[in-house]
């Protein structure tokens, strides 16, 4: 339906006067003062940073809360937040953060190391049931505590069982039964590897080396929350504007669900002197045509990523409003490697070689073709591995070698069991069109008509994660933090987000080895080796890197097209001087 709305509106739009002559889309009159009006996407799940899981929520939380580090406004790498500096031990298992002595909550309470300890323990509490708690699992005993698990202790000696891989205490989940001679010791919040060394120093101890942990700390799950207000009003009600105490550059003044979230500059914020916006207004909206209409009419100043409807893209991308950059996200096809014929690597590779990724990316307009798994252009210094290029001839040879051949030994499509392969996708835009394009390419290049199976989105995710699909399935991943490991770790376990059934111990060993490596470039090289193993397995067919694809008015400065479209709002401002619109914003200073 939304597509129909969009197409009708687009057809009519073509007749309307456009603002192409000025180089901008629609009105360019800045709002009075320093107020930013931003379309933030769907209604946020909650205003509690440890509850909301999506990028939509993350952007809103970045106005109201802060962690030890924040995302660099341009690169999304770690940037000093409430911590002014940090120390990391040699094997990346201890991260010590030194807090600023002027950091305050919005009610004036000082932010101390104890607040960070309490915030993490709260997020990991199994009764609190935070969906994103698993991002903190690299922290010592975090997974055990969050799983309501127990340590295993020898009754006779009192010694704890150790995990042979990590040498940390072994834990069992809540459903486990004690073995003879052993007893269970429930894991407490105090066992989690976080401690306040002094009021201004907090230390995180990890289970195993994790060089990516620093970048991960900018995630919303690690933002500091105010203990007293949560204990007073409860987890459900503390986020109401009349109760909430925040820790970021803005304090919440209004929240009308599905309508607006309003924040005013917080004078208590440690860096308030450098916060230029006086007010920030988040407007939820989901229909991209409506977003663009509001933008054109000058009712809002910037839109969330992926906001430009596909048919509008050729026009909008010529304008100065358009913000385009590679995203830390990919689209790939995952293959169920547990069932024939896809348990044969030659068949999997053939399906990959027969796809023209350039044509697929051209159709999508806002994507760049990808033959490897890690998005290109995101991690400086990460090596380019070797993926499959478009080679239908080789694809047919491989299928013939796999046994689907005629008497002369040539590939015969009629021998291929199409009843055992289908391409499964969810019924959201643009996946239907992409599925049809993939089907036509396989038909054209291999002579195989792969049946398409369309499913409701949540039904699709359930089926895909349980490996209930046969053959091929749509997939994609957006990084949780700025490190290639966020992509490669998908295949570290055979379950969870893996979804392919492919798993090799040597792959996990390569990842572990890379994470023990101190030199960043050497670590990237080792991660690259692991990626090559994944590509060689052909368990996934990478297709494209996504793109940020959003717009902002020329007077909005300090918002950059970074790989996650996550903005440090304290650097954003409204430039009323038209002569400065084309000039770059001053570089942010930590």
């Amino acid at each position, binding site marked *: *339906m*939304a597509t129909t*709305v969009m197409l*009708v*509106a687009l057809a*009519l*739009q073509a007749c*309307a*006067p456009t603002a192409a002559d000025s180089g901008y889309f629609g009105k360019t009159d800045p709002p009075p003062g320093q107020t930013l009006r931003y379309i933030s996407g769907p*209604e946020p*799940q*909650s205003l*509690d940073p440890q*509850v909301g*899981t999506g990028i939509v929520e993350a952007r809103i939380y970045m106005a109201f809360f802060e962690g030890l580090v924040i995302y660099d406004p341009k690169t999304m790498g770690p940037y000093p937040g409430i911590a002014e500096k940090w120390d990391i031990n040699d094997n990346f298992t201890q991260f010590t953060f030194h807090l600023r002595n002027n950091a305050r909550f919005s009610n004036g309470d000082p932010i101390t190391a104890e607040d960070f300890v309490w915030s993490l323990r709260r997020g990991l509490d*199994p*009764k*609190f*049931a*935070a*969906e994103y*708690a698993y991002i903190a*699992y690299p922290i010592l005993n975090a*997974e055990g505590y*969050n*799983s*309501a*698990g127990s340590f295993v202790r020898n009754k006779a000696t009192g010694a704890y069982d150790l995990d042979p891989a990590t040498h940390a205490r072994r834990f069992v*989940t*809540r459903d486990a039964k004690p073995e003879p001679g052993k007893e269970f010791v429930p894991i407490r919040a105090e066992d989690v590897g976080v401690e306040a060394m002094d009021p201004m120093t907090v230390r995180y101890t990890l289970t195993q080396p994790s060089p990516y942990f620093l970048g991960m700390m900018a995630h919303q799950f690690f933002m500091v929350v105010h203990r007293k207000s949560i204990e007073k009003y409860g*987890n*459900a*009600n503390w*986020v109401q504007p009349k109760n909430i105490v925040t820790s970021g550059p803005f304090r919440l003044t209004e929240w*009308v*669900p*599905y*309508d607006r979230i309003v924040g005013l500059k917080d004078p208590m914020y440690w860096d308030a002197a450098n916060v230029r916006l006086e007010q920030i207004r988040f*407007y*939820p*909206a*989901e*229909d991209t*045509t*409506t977003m663009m*209409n*509001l933008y*054109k*009419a000058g*009712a809002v100043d910037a839109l969330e990523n992926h906001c430009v409807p596909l048919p509008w893209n050729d026009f909008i991308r010529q304008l100065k409003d358009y913000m385009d950059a590679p995203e830390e996200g990919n689209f790939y096809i995952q293959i169920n490697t547990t069932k024939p014929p896809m348990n044969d690597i030659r068949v999997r590779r053939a399906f990959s070689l027969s796809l023209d990724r350039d044509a697929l990316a051209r159709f999508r307009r806002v994507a760049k073709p990808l033959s490897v798994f890690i998005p290109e252009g995101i991690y400086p210094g990460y090596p380019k591995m070797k993926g499959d290029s478009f080679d239908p001839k080789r694809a047919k040879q491989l299928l013939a070698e796999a046994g689907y051949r005629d008497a002369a030994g040539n590939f015969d499509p009629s021998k291929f069991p199409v009843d055992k392969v289908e391409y499964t996708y969810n019924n959201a835009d643009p996946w239907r069109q992409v599925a049809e394009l993939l089907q036509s390419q396989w038909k054209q290049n291999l002579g195989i008509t792969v049946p398409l199976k369309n499913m*409701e*989105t*949540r*039904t699709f*995710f*359930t089926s895909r*994660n349980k490996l209930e699909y046969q053959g091929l399935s749509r997939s994609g991943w957006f990084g949780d933090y700025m490190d290639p490991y966020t992509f490669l770790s998908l295949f570290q376990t055979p379950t*969870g*987000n893996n*979804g392919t059934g492919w798993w090799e111990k040597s792959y996990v060993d390569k990842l572990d080895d890379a994470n023990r490596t101190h030199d960043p470039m050497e670590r990237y090289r080792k991660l690259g080796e692991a990626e090559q193993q994944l590509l060689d397995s052909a368990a996934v067919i990478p297709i494209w890197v996504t793109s940020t694809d959003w717009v902002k008015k020329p007077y909005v400065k300090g918002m950059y097209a970074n790989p996650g479209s996550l903005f440090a709002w304290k650097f954003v401002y409204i430039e009323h001087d038209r002569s400065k619109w084309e000039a770059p914003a001053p570089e942010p200073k930590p």
Partner: protein
Amino acid sequence: MLRFVVRRLLSTIPMVLVVVSLTWGLIRLAPGSFYTGEKALPPAIEQNLRAKYGLDKPWYVQYGKMISNTARLDFGSSLKYEGQPVNAILWRAFPVSAMVGLLAYSLSLLVGITSGLFAAVRHNSKWDYSSMTLSMLGISVPTFVLGPILVLFFSLTLYWFPPARWDGFATRSAVLPVLTLSVIYMAYIARLTRSGMLEVLRSDYIRTARAKGLSETAIVLKHAFRGGIIPVVSLTGPALAGLITGTVVVERIFVLPGLGTYFLNANLNRDEPLILGIVAFISITILVCNLLVDVAYAFIDPRIRY
């Protein structure tokens, strides 16, 4: 009459319970849950969530709790929107939908009845043909086409009204959603009024009135109108119930924080308490609106008595 109203009101209770039970069953049949997403959750976190929301209990315990909640008209908290009670969402969203719906239906009645009346009185005239052609157009153009056309013309060309978002009832932001929503009902009401009036104007008692020498205005407004309007009254029950409880398309196009928006997203999010709350609310509204229509018949048509 009073006995009839009380009996009908009492009958809504089992009907609402049946509707929510069927809805509950259908939600449970659908694979996936409110926490199912592109990124799969570790089993431990799924267990935490299921324990937190009581989803780890046997189905009959969960069903019993749901029925008990429904009987007390307390649907608990939304699963997707952490900590937001369903009743609070209903109280917040219903006034927006109701205001847009009532304004749209009032406008539809005013324009629809007037043009239908003229079309019937001036049967086969230019007025009749043109109003019926326009009404056919109004019925044929769906709201998801009309809405963007109105936005394009009034918001993006003339800049008279905002293209979306809700600033309240007596603001310019209400104009385009109300207009978009009312056009199709205007068209229906015009056609129903015309056909109803034509039928009545041909009946014996109108002939008698004419024979008595009454003026045409008195015949139409005093005698024919009450009978001719009955089809419109029949339409009003379900139409008004549908309008005031939220219209998904218009609320989405114009970003209105109404019940339709919540209902659509609750379904996509598998937000069981919110779905059940809105379903129960819509059921009750439809049943009450239909009851009001039945009561209205008795006042409009002297032949109908309960």
